[in-house]
């Protein structure tokens, strides 16, 4: 098709020869030379047409035109590098951000979980009024497993911490205890060794475990003979029977290193009311989640009746496992995606209006080409090609931006949180993102191509030709350009309002009353082997030694210990009742913390009534408790709680505690959750081998951490110390703070870009319309208009656009804020302060942006303006 052996010149030569031959012959027939030549020409007809047909024969005309259009488009872009760079940068930003966010959405929400038939996998648990996902007790699990017909298999898992003893000392490690069929239910096969044998999860089964791939790689050098070796966990030898595949991850298990069968139980765990195991089940083919739930609810009820469980109204919950894993991040990701798409829209509109301005200044070119015979279709082709080129370049740059942003965002997620988000690993430019990117690029290209086409539709050739001689702005431009700017401003308002609300949520969240002073607190978690520290005396001796040694360090004010640090979760709870009051089986759930005498003073938790614990509150003295104000208000509304008693089952034994003090509400649970009732027991009376050390320092707490760890190891080198950090960092790293910070930051970034683009767009419209009206303004001033009235003229136009954009934007933003309500904390969607701040910010920025063109217009020298054209 492309062999074109004969040149057009050769063909032209042949036609010339023909004309000469014909003229010769006509001359022979008796015509004069001139007449012969004339006749030959007439007989031949249109020489140019013949040559054109020769040129076009079996050429793909459209392709030819395309090449020419592309060449022309490139010339146009390079002729105006400022325009080209701006347009491509803006597009790259819009496309890059939305593709990157989509990458996360895809990995988290669209990609199926990496298990066999993941849609059949359900998170199966009990459900209570307090929590829709209430763990199972082990006896309940066994009954559920026995009685149901909906699941082909039902398994449970529960997180566990062990102390790993190896040649380099003791180290706390994360593990997951799972029932025997756990991996079969997921459809995961060990890459090395074997899965649990059926009997290994029965009570009293052997100490065996499976390794995570990372553990096998890092701790066992990826050696195949690791199988069969033993690992010392909590002083017990576990035999390694298998290694899980590289691709395996189980988000609810975090970054568990060891997978141990549930075959030994504490006294608690044997009880039907000790809810600590989370379930997963695989639905039988054809059974829906609803059907399974309908079957499990009566089973849950029946068991409650059968075993006389009162006070807790438990039903079943059956939700897809994917829902459980990504349910938390879904609203955030969708919000971010919407924000990114809005940004993309604003970028398109922005570049669209840039293209429009340019097509405006090329009206004469278009009109001339039209007058010379270019068909509207041919003219449109040219503009479509330019849109195409711009869109393609923008998309290419956008891909690079996207890759960069994905990597950046991925690295911003802290490690602790990332282990609960296994999908982060699969974020990247894959087939899904490529399709999305292509779709986005296509839309961008289409909109960029359509803008000048719209423009052409309204263009009248004679108007265009005449335009160069007149100086009034075209009505078309004013109409469309103004509408586009209003769209930009509306989007900017929506994003700004979203960012404002999320920002205020974050502020509110970080300023939630904590009930203690988090500054200058160093914390770390400590595990002491219970094979070494067995008796009360030994453990209490350790506590005292730690407090004594740590307190004597320079820069340390006080030190204390707790079973669990504040601002973590409303977990490790207790069921209490009140001796002397009628017990109707109410489920009185409270946070339970075991703390040393120095702990509450170290936190600076204010004592409201009574006293703190003292060293005298030990096993030889009566059991005592401190409660928080929520508990006091809830259960002792009109009486003095000090001196009252609360009762529970402590370590399986009924116990009674006398309240000796009331403290301010130290926030034990997450920042975005209401404070719960809480009780504190003396750690000396409850004995706790795993605890957190809290140290109040007078100097920078972060720099104290290494010395503190050192001191602990001096006391006993086998103490497993981990998670050494400061309290403020600890709080900042909680999921609630991170998620809010993440969304506020990103949406804030989007909003900032949107504001800039919107205001620049407004500036463009005003500046362009002023440049078109220079002559008009000149005439006005020549006729006596004051500078102030010229200012007013410009500012009125800008003010009108801004006001329209703001009005529509504020209405839209209330709507959009209602959609992201689940992400807001302590702020209403229609928060007046935020909305008026947004209005003020945008109004101010808009006025600032239009002041420049107004100033320029007002400084027009009428003489020059009139002479200019």
């Amino acid at each position, binding site marked *: 098709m492309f062999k074109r052996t004969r040149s057009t010149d050769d*063909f032209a030569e042949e*036609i010339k020869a*023909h004309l000469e*031959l014909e003229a010769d*012959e006509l001359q022979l027939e008796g015509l004069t030379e001139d007449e012969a030549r004339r006749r030959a020409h007439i007989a031949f007809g249109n020489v140019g047409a013949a040559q054109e047909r020769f040129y076009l024969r079996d050429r793909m005309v459209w392709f030819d035109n395309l090449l020419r259009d592309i060449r022309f488009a490139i010339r146009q872009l390079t002729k105006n590098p400022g325009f080209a760079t701006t347009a491509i940068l803006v597009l790259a930003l819009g496309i890059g951000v939305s593709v990157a966010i989509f990458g996360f959405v895809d990995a988290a929400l669209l990609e199926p979980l990496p298990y066999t038939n993941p849609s059949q996998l359900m998170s199966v648990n009990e459900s209570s009024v307090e929590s829709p996902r209430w763990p199972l007790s082990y006896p309940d699990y066994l009954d559920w497993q026995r009685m149901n017909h909906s699941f082909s298999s039902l398994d449970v898992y529960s997180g566990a911490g062990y102390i790993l003893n190896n040649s380099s000392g003791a180290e706390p490690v994360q593990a997951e205890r799972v029932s025997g069929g756990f991996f079969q239910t997921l459809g995961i096969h060990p890459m090395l060794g074997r899965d649990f044998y059926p009997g290994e999860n029965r009570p009293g089964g052997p100490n065996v475990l499976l390794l995570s791939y990372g553990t096998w790689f890092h701790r066992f050098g990826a050696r195949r003979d690791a199988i069969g070796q033993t690992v010392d966990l909590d002083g017990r030898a576990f035999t390694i029977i298998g290694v899980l595949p590289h691709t395996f991850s189980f988000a609810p298990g975090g970054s568990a290193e060891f997978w141990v069968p549930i075959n030994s139980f504490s006294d608690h765990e044997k009880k039907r009311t000790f809810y600590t195991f989370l379930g997963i089940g695989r639905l039988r083919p054809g059974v829906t989640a609803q059907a399974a739930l309908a079957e499990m609810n009566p089973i849950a009820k029946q068991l409650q009746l059968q075993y006389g469980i009162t006070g807790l109204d438990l039903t079943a919950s059956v939700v897809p496992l994917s829902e459980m894993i990504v349910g938390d991040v879904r609203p955030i990701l969708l919000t971010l995606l919407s924000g990114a798409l809005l940004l993309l829209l604003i970028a398109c509109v922005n570049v669209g209006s840039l293209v429009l301005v340019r097509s405006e200044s090329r009206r004469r070119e278009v009109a001339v080409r039209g007058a010379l015979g270019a068909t509207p279709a041919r003219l449109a082709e040219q503009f479509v090609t330019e849109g195409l080129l711009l869109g393609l370049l923008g998309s290419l740059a956008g891909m690079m931006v996207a890759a960069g942003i994905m990597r950046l965002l991925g690295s911003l997620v802290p490690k602790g949180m990332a282990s609960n988000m296994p999908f982060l690993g699969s974020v990247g430019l894959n087939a899904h993102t490529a399709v999305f990117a292509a779709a986005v690029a296509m839309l961008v290209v289409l909109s960029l191509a359509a803008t000048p086409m719209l423009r052409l539709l309204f263009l009248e050739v004679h108007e265009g030709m005449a335009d160069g001689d007149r100086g009034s702005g075209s009505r078309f431009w004013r109409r469309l350009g103004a509408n586009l700017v209003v769209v930009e401003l509306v989007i900017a308002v929506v994003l700004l309002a979203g960012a404002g609300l999320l920002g205020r949520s974050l502020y509110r969240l970080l300023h939630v009353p904590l009930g203690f002073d988090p500054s200058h607190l160093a914390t770390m978690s400590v595990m002491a082997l219970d094979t070494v520290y067995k008796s009360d005396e030994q453990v209490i001796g350790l506590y005292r030694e730690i407090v004594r040694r740590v307190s004597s360090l320079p820069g340390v004010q006080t030190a204390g210990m707790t079973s669990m640090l504040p601002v973590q979760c409303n977990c490790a709870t207790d069921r209490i009742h009140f001796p002397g009051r009628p017990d109707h089986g109410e489920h009185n759930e409270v946070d339970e913390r075991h703390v040393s005498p120095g702990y509450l003073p170290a936190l600076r938790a204010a004592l409201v009534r009574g006293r703190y614990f003292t060293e005298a509150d030990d096993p030889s003295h009566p059991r005592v408790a401190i409660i928080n104000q929520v508990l006091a208000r809830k259960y002792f509304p009109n009486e003095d709680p000090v001196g009252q008693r609360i009762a529970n089952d402590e370590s399986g034994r009924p116990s009674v505690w006398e309240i000796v003090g009331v403290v301010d509400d130290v926030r034990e649970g997450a920042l975005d959750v209401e404070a719960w009732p809480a009780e504190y027991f003396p750690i000396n009376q409850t004995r706790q081998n795993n605890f957190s050390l809290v140290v109040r320092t007078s100097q920078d707490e972060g720099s104290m951490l290494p010395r503190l760890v050192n001191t602990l190891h001096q006391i006993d080198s086998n103490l497993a110390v981990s998670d050494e950090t400061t309290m403020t960092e600890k709080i900042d790293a909680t999921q609630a703070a991170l998620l809010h910070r993440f969304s506020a930051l990103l949406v804030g970034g989007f909003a900032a870009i949107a504001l800039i683009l919107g205001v620049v767009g407004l500036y463009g419209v005003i500046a362009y319309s002023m440049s078109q009206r220079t002559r008009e303004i000149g005439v006005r001033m020549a006729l006596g208009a004051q500078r102030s009235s010229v200012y007013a003229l410009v500012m009125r136009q800008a003010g009108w656009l801004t006001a329209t954009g703001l009005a529509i934007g504020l209405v839209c933003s209330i709507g959009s804020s209602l959609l992201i309500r689940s992400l807001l904390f302590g702020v209403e969607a229609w928060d007046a302060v935020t909305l008026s701040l947004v209005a003020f910010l945008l109004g101010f920025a808009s006025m600032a942006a239009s002041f420049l063109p107004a100033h320029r217009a007002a400084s027009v020298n009428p003489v020059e303006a009139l002479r200019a054209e």
Partner: protein
Amino acid sequence: MPSQKNPDDRIALLQGTLDLLILKTLVLGPCHGQGVARSIQRRSEEVFFVDHGSLYLALQRLEDKKWISAKWGVSENNRKARFYSLTAKGREQLVEKTSEWERLTRAMGLILGSSPGPSSEEA
């Protein structure tokens, strides 16, 4: 006076027949485009008028198909001209196209000659 008929009496060439006419003309020996045009016009007793632009495109088409070959030469009155001659493939095509044409004209003749329309009967 140049021998030219009144343009109204001339018949535009049927689609596809030009190729056949060119091949037939070239059977007589190599010839340039202008000669081919003259020859067709003359031998059709000035009934056919060959559009010169179309002729040259047709020549190019035939050359692309390798039915004819071309080379620049000098005409009898010493003018530079591009001479076309039949190739072996072109000769085959000529035979084939001629028989095709004959079948076509026979069929046309059968229809037009044997069953004249009712309107002409009345007239």
